[in-house]
């Protein structure tokens, strides 16, 4: 009894401090997740809810648009995350040890698109890419290239969206990498210099291994962000052409808010949640092991 009392005395303050956060976490994150899982087993209309077991999941796996959305989402995740991590690593390792003002300038330049709303970015790109009256199409016509319709071609629509999303996101990763690289012990670089290591060797043998936790973190947050890709799709392509750029989040939105198929939309949400968990757990494990 005394042990329990002393344990409580010792930890009560700490638990009280995290209590408000825990309550918010339970009410706004855990409960919606559980409710979403429950709804995925129901057919819901305005008047009633009917338990349908796995019917919503079965309907999804019979819908070719769902598979298209799944494949497109995986393609987006793989390419955008690889591009973001690769490019951010390249820029950060090229400039982290340069003059502070120069580093600030580069950091600021890449960060500006992150501060601009994705809605605004998408509208600007929409203006540039519009096949009938967009700027890129206009210059292409003037140059004798005929009509350029990058968003209306299933071969080009995905690379365009990958580029637009990558351009809007990469600033965040560059900032994180630069901060992490500046924190790497100077002794390691000096030792490498004494040993006559080349810049490439310094980057690959010292810098990249030293910032591995940052790489894992950037990879996880980008995977989660890209899985939820929506605004660009909604504003640039509407999932088109011919469902060529539809993603899981866009498919979920359509079912939830346009078709009022809450059960189907919840099932998509559960599948997305499972994918995110599966992708994140190994990386989280690696991160925790390192710590």
């Amino acid at each position, binding site marked *: 009894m005394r042990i329990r009392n002393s344990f409580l005395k010792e930890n009560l303050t700490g638990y009280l401090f995290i209590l408000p956060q825990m309550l918010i976490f339970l009410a706004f994150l855990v409960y919606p997740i559980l409710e979403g899982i429950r709804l995925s087993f129901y*057919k819901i209309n305005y008047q009633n809810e009917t338990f349908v077991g796995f019917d919503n999941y079965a309907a999804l796996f019979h819908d070719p648009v769902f598979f298209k959305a799944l494949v497109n989402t995986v393609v987006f995740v793989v390419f955008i995350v690889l591009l973001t991590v690769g490019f951010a690593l390249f820029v950060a390792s090229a400039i982290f040890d340069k003059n502070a003002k120069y580093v600030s300038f580069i950091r600021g330049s890449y960060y500006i698109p992150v501060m601009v709303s994705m809605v605004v970015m998408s509208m600007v790109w929409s203006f540039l890419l519009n096949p009938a009256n967009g700027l890129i199409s206009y210059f292409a016509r003037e140059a004798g290239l005929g009509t350029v319709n990058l968003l*209306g071609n299933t071969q080009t629509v995905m690379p365009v969206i990958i580029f637009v999303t990558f351009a809007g996101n990469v600033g965040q990763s560059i900032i994180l990498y630069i901060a992490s690289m500046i924190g790497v012990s100077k002794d390691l670089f000096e030792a490498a210099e004494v040993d006559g290591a080349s810049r490439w060797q310094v980057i690959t043998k010292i810098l990249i291994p030293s910032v591995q936790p940052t790489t894992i973190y950037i990879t996880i947050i980008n995977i989660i962000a890209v899985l939820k890709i929506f605004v660009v799709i909604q504003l640039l392509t509407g999932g*088109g052409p011919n469902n060529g750029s539809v993603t899981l989040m866009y498919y979920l939105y359509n079912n939830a808010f346009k078709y009022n198929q809450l059960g189907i939309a919840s099932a998509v949400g559960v599948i997305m949640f499972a994918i995110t968990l599966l992708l994140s757990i190994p990386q989280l494990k690696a991160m925790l092991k390192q710590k």
Partner: protein
Amino acid sequence: MKKWSMGITAVTIMALLAGCSGNANNEGSSANGGGNSKGKEKVAINVWLTPQWKGVLDATEQGADYDSFLKYAAKKFTEQYDKYDADIKVEVVAGDQRDQLLNVNLNGGTAPNVFFESTFAMGDYVHRGALEPLTDIIDDNAKSDIAQNYWDMVTFGDDIYFYPFQNNPGTLVYNADMFKAAGLEQYVGGENEIKTWTLAEYEQILEGLKTKLPKDKYSNAYPMALFAVNNQGDTWNLSYLRMFGLDFFDKDGNIVLGENGVKSAAWLKKIYDAKYTNPGAESVSSNDANAMFQNQQLAISFTNPVLFNGIKANMASGTSPKFDIRLANIPSESGDPLTFTYVVGASVFQSKDPKKTEVAKDFVKFFSSDPELVKSSKNGIPVRASVIKELSGENPFFAAYDANSKYIFNFSGNVPGYSQLREALYPELQALYMGAKTPEQAIKDYVASGNKVIQSNKENSVIYKK
């Protein structure tokens, strides 16, 4: 102790202030209600609308906004209403957020009591059992003043669910200056006419605009608007699919688009490939097309009275170039004009409180039939013959639209799941324009996926379950 007493004093003062301001608010709302609220039970209802027109009668009024009409109607209603002390709150919601807001509020039990909107967009809520029938508030006077085809569009099963107020007929709009510049004077209609061309004439017009339009004056311009990036403006696309015949839905509400639909799709593909339209139709929106028409990059586009007046207002204010715009019907193989209309009117959402439903129905009946208020329907095209007769001198197009009305077809068929059905069309049109599907395949796939949507929504439709 001192701190405690100060705290209690502060709380007491705040409570008193809150109490005073609460009273002040109540007094304010009673005054708003016209001062005849003594002894009557207070019933509050929410009225939502999507942007339709600004002002009570027109946009030139001081402080004119989208909610002006319904706010004025609410004030007039509460002043004369003797059953309850009605408190009516009017809120404008964006058209593209309508379904999202309604679905969230319906699931949360906070749906509005009245919604004023184009009725085709609200049909799904009838099938879902969320709306109250309004049959009991429609009297013989209204039935005789409003033509039967409008009633047909708002009738689901045996009941009327929307009180028609005005309508927005869809037509084509063309740049008469571009026609003249291309030597197509003989096809230009009168200023107040809705011109009807045959399909053969229309093809000659497109050819003339493509080949004879002076490039120095109209560089980067195309004959006709074509768009399929999303569901916006899809009613025009649905009309084009009826160019070779009106058979679209059967009596059971299934899509039966067959050979005529294939011919129509083939025609669309033909004019697209012949470069009679803007390029990239698969990724151009109706908004893009409208902007291009205003910039004289398109000679023929789509319109309705609201858009048409908007273009004229932009020209008058100098925000877009001035040119001669006129109206035309969508042509068809038979030679009859193809015309559809968006009936705009009010619906009443079901409520657990029967008093709210009663007030909502009384309010809808009041502003949809009050002789002064129904004149505001002139901002679109009035559905009431009496209003058209009274105001035809004010708007010469009223007569032209009235003459067209016998050709109106019900584009939605009032089928369940119409908003979901809309999502099935544009991917097929995209595939058609990109050459990924033949006209036969695109129509076949649209019919299959569309009927699947209708079938699954029929299973939940309270109208079909009856």
